[in-house]
């Protein structure tokens, strides 16, 4: 049973106070949706949890962990960009992340889970926007990490893609994973909600 807790988090971008004294708690199987207007700090909070942004106050940690770096190593971050190289094939891209991030699975099953298995040997440059998003999701399947930090994961996905995404998220939660996702619309799964915005200053 894994727990993620963030206490007293503050975030400053430029000289603007984006939010302060933010707390959240997540246990295995929990999903949290971040909502709010643009500029409210959803993406910043995700990057903060991923360890890519240093908080101005507070800390983030897995329950029982004294080493803060451990969160970044046990989380997947899915941002607005899709993090793959157009000069490599679809399969080469996934295999690289498997080796670099320490996954135990193969590329083929992960690609099959997102419906890209027939494109494994094509250059990633040929993919459409929706297929690129699926490729990013394949990375989440290929490498098992307990925490998923997703920034508007459903963008660029059509309705079939969004259903697939919801299915993947449900499977992940059922296996004891945790999800924090910033979104403008419904995610299609049961989740708690954290609204960021003026009321949070």
């Amino acid at each position, binding site marked *: 049973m894994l727990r993620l807790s963030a206490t007293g988090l503050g975030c*400053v971008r*430029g*000289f*603007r*106070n984006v939010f302060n004294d933010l707390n959240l708690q997540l246990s295995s199987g929990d999903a949290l949706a971040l909502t709010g207007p643009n*500029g409210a700090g959803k993406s910043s909070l995700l990057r903060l949890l991923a360890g890519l942004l240093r908080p101005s106050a507070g800390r983030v940690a897995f329950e029982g962990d004294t080493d803060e770096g451990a969160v970044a190593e046990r989380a997947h971050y899915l941002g607005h960009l899709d993090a793959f190289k157009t000069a490599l094939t679809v399969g080469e891209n996934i295999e690289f992340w498997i080796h670099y991030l320490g996954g135990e699975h193969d590329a083929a099953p992960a690609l099959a889970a997102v419906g890209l298995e027939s494109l494994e040997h094509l250059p990633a440059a040929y993919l459409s926007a929706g297929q690129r998003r699926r490729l990013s999701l394949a990375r989440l399947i290929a490498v098992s990490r307990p925490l998923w930090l997703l920034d508007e994961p459903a963008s660029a996905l059509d309705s079939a893609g969004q259903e697939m995404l919801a299915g993947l998220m449900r499977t992940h939660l059922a296996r004891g994973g945790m999800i924090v996702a910033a979104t403008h619309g419904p995610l299609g799964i049961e989740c708690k909600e954290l609204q960021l915005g*003026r009321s949070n200053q």
Partner: protein
Amino acid sequence: MALIDLANPTRFLALVARALPWLAAATALAFACGLYLSWFTAPDDYQQGATVKIMFVHVPNAWLAMGVWTVMSIASIGTLVWRHPLADVAAKAAAPLGAAFTFLALFTGALWGRPMWGTYWVWDARLTSVLVLFLMYLGIIALWRTVDDPSRAGRAAAILTLVGAVNLPIIKFSVDWWNTLHQPASVIRLGGPAIHPAILTPLLTMALAFGLLFVTLHLAAMRNEILRRRVRAMGLMQAHAAQGA
């Protein structure tokens, strides 16, 4: 939507407002004494005549060129280790001053060299090291101006300053080596003959004067930078408020 807490800089601004007039007066006094001593009491050099007195401006500037980089390095440690709000203000304000003193050192060095060597620049070891230092100052200033976000610029400049601090002794050593390879030892050294007391007093007075000048200008520049950042923060607040309306 709250302004970032600037309590420390506010106290700093109050301190600067009180201290600046005194510092400016002390600087003026030190320069008056130093210039008087340099002009009237220091002896002419038997070889160079009165032009040796450029040393009283050149040497303090060369010392300050190194000294300001040291100040910037300490400020950089403050930025990276403690994220002290005043640290990157101090570093940013110091860089142009350091560049100016370095430039003055080069300029007075060239002026001094002309009567002696016949040309303005002979690539001697000391002046060449100072030239490389000047290039590094300009690089730091370029970095400050190219990165938009002031706090990120501060951290980037801090890293480069510390890398530069580590490299400066290496560069000095390398340039000295290079110089002995390519120039015979008989070239007149800018240091001149051994420093004896009649030269020491005016030299140290001028060094003190330039040092006070730096402190005065530095504090004033820090004050200006803090005010500049406040204006920027207010502008950001205004833009953000308009977005939500």
